[in-house]
């Protein structure tokens, strides 16, 4: 059963291990435990880059035991939003943490030199990372990976964007996964932490091995044999390109349209046919949702070539493809590669590049800001130069770009087409009110918080009132708080029904009814908002770029007044007890 938390102090190069069985039995793991630890460990109103600001990493009680329980949750104070930083990653990390005997890791302090941390079961050591300085995650990963290791190893590392404190730098996990959102990479760097390697040789146990085998078989059949997750195995999330384009919901040219004329060129089908060379799974999941492409980069005559293997998914392809009017697969992959190698959130990079293009077109910025780079739709070379400058920050303009579109548009104008909500670059769903409201109210301002896009799609098929949409968003986020505490991959959300989750928890000695779990989900959400309100979050102060009320979505053009009413309804339903949105 989950009990142990590893506390790492980079300043003193010391660690302690504490037993926190009650914390795990009450809040399960993942999101539930991480937010409690963040509330405990993060001083109010602390500078996100302060040594006192913690990084919390949490696995879950079902990690490794049952199919698709593979994700790791990371929380911190985000430099991008100045508020709750929450980002989830697949890969080998959750299993490695559990095999090493831990449920969560808390990292604080500031190392005197650039450092990498190795955790090998309960042996923890600090190493000089001077030789890794400036290295992309792919090289750092190779440096730290132990071939044919006993047990399971995971490597988390940052790139140059993190080292330079770009506010949306990400942390790479095991080459093809990312703690992508809200700037964890910069938080690593602010602690002089380049990478973590964690290796576990232990085991994860259930209360009853026979019940474990039966439930595993049941869920494996659902996931693998009955096709419950076929989409993610076949084309992966990239299936969305043509589906959403057909629905007029594929963000194109900085959200000026939901239709991309060349969607077929960058579709999941086209990538699978032309670029994909393999699929990879997280340990403990038979689905293999990671779709890996081979990008051939010719560099000299006589057919000299440097092959690159990289993962592609819907969100980066929308952000660095249709949203920039890029139709060539290789060009999209080149930009994904740059994001990967520098260690930048590919989605936010796309948001920034789209804003830059439009701001330049509209004359809000000129060559003196861009240092003579001329951004233009579909021009991958100019986007590559801008990306390099974002990371290297040669002037104030690029420094602002490295802080995201909220900061850049505050300085240079163009807030109406700075396509971020809650300062986080928008996901690729131009579907309607639920998606929009869901992103604003979601604790991590992600489409994954509460699946508004899915509620919008439902609203096309059946009549749902706006009030019902709000209720659905609340119920969905509460339940997702349970799923991300276990930590079930959200791709498997449909095979883990409420009853299955309650049954699964019995395997690890946790007896909770479905109703209890739903209440717990609500409590976890409230804990997230306790942190958000404490750090100054205010629904009414967040910028809503006007474009979202101008461009027709899948469900038509959105009305600002209707949206405001839905937000008011949400606040009163969510925080109704004492009438104030900051009270629960």
């Amino acid at each position: 059963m989950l009990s142990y938390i590893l506390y790492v102090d980079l300043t003193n190069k010391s660690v302690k291990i504490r037993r926190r069985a009650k914390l795990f039995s009450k809040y399960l793991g993942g999101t539930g435990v991480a937010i409690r630890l963040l509330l405990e460990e993060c001083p109010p109103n602390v500078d996100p880059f302060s040594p006192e600001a913690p990084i919390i990493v949490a696995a879950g009680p079902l990690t490794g035991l049952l199919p698709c329980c593979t994700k790791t949750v990371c929380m911190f104070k985000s430099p991008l939003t100045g508020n709750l930083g929450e980002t989830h990653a697949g890969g080998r990390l959750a299993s490695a943490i559990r095999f090493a005997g831990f449920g969560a890791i808390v990292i604080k302090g500031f190392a005197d030199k650039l450092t990498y941390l190795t955790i090998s079961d309960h042996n923890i050591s600090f190493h000089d990372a001077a030789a890794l300085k400036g290295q992309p995650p792919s090289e750092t990963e190779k440096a730290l990976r132990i071939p044919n290791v006993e047990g399971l190893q995971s490597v988390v590392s940052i790139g140059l964007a993190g080292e330079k404190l770009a506010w949306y730098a990400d942390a790479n996990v095991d080459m093809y996964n990312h703690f992508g959102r809200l700037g964890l990479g910069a938080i690593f760097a602010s602690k002089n932490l380049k990478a973590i390697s964690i290796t576990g040789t232990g085991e994860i146990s259930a209360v009853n091995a026979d019940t474990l085998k039966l439930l595993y078989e049941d869920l494996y059949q659902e996931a693998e044999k009955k096709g419950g997750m076929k989409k993610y195995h076949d084309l992966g999330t990239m299936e969305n390109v043509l589906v959403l384009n057909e629905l007029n919901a594929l963000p194109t040219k900085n959200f000026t349209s939901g239709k991309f004329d060349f969607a077929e060129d960058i579709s999941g089908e086209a990538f699978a046919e032309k670029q994909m060379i393999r699929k990879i799974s997280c340990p403990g999941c038979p689905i293999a949702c990671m779709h890996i492409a081979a990008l051939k980069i010719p560099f000299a005559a006589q057919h000299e070539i440097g092959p690159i293997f990289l993962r592609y998914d819907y969100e980066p392809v929308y952000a660095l493809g249709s949203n920039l009017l890029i139709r060539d697969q290789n060009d999209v992959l080149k930009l994904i590669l740059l994001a990967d190698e520098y260690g930048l959130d590919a989605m936010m990079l796309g948001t920034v590049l789209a804003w830059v293009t439009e701001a330049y077109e509209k004359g809000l910025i000129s060559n003196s800001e861009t240092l003579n780079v001329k951004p233009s739709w579909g021009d991958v070379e100019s986007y590559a130069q801008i990306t390099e400058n974002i990371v290297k920050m040669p002037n104030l303009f690029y420094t602002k770009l490295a802080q995201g579109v909220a900061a850049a548009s505050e300085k240079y104008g163009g807030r109406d087409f700075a396509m971020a909500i809650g300062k986080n670059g928008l996901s690729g769903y131009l579907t309607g009110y639920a998606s929009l409201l869901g992103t604003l109210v979601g604790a991590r301002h992600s489409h994954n918080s509460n699946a508004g896009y899915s509620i919008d799609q439902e609203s096309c098929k059946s009549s749902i009132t706006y009030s019902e949409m709000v209720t659905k968003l609340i119920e969905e986020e509460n339940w997702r708080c349970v799923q991300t505490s276990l930590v079930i991959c959200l791709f498997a959300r449909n095979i883990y029904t409420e009853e299955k989750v309650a049954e699964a928890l019995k395997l690890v000695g946790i007896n909770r009814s479905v109703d209890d779990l739903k209440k717990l989900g609500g409590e976890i959400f409230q804990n997230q908002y306790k942190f958000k309100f404490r750090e100054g979050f205010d629904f009414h102060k967040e910028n809503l770029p006007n474009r979202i009320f101008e461009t027709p979505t899948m469900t038509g053009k959105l009305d600002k007044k209707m949206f405001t009413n839905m937000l008011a309804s949400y606040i009163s339903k969510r925080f109704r007890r004492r009438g104030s949105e900051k009270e629960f």
Partner: protein
Amino acid sequence: MPEKVWVDRPERCIGCYSCVYACSRELFGTTSASRTAIFVRTGKSLEDRFHVVVCITCKDPPCAVACKKEALQAKPEGGVTLVASKCVDCKNFECLSACAIGALTLDPKTKKPIICTECGLCAKYCPHEVLGFGEAGGP
């Protein structure tokens, strides 16, 4: 003819560990990447292909030959059985290094080698047809 497991299509491995975890569940009732008789090994990078290793049931098993205590006994059909009572006070674990493909590891709890029981669950749970299981196949 007894049934056996073999690595049939190594290039298809997706690194999901379904085989490994099926093995540890069956043999020990837990999930582990260490307490298992089948391994998905990773090289110096996740860019590399995965390397799946399981006992190939040699006819004249070098692990049995190497064991000075006769704790590993060759089976007539190939492969070995472990006589646990004889596998004691060993310091060099020559059985492990005798296996060219590294199919033997020690159970970290008992300090005895983990022997594949040829139950076939690893193959059953492989979603990508990497593993074969049956009477006839294998090298």
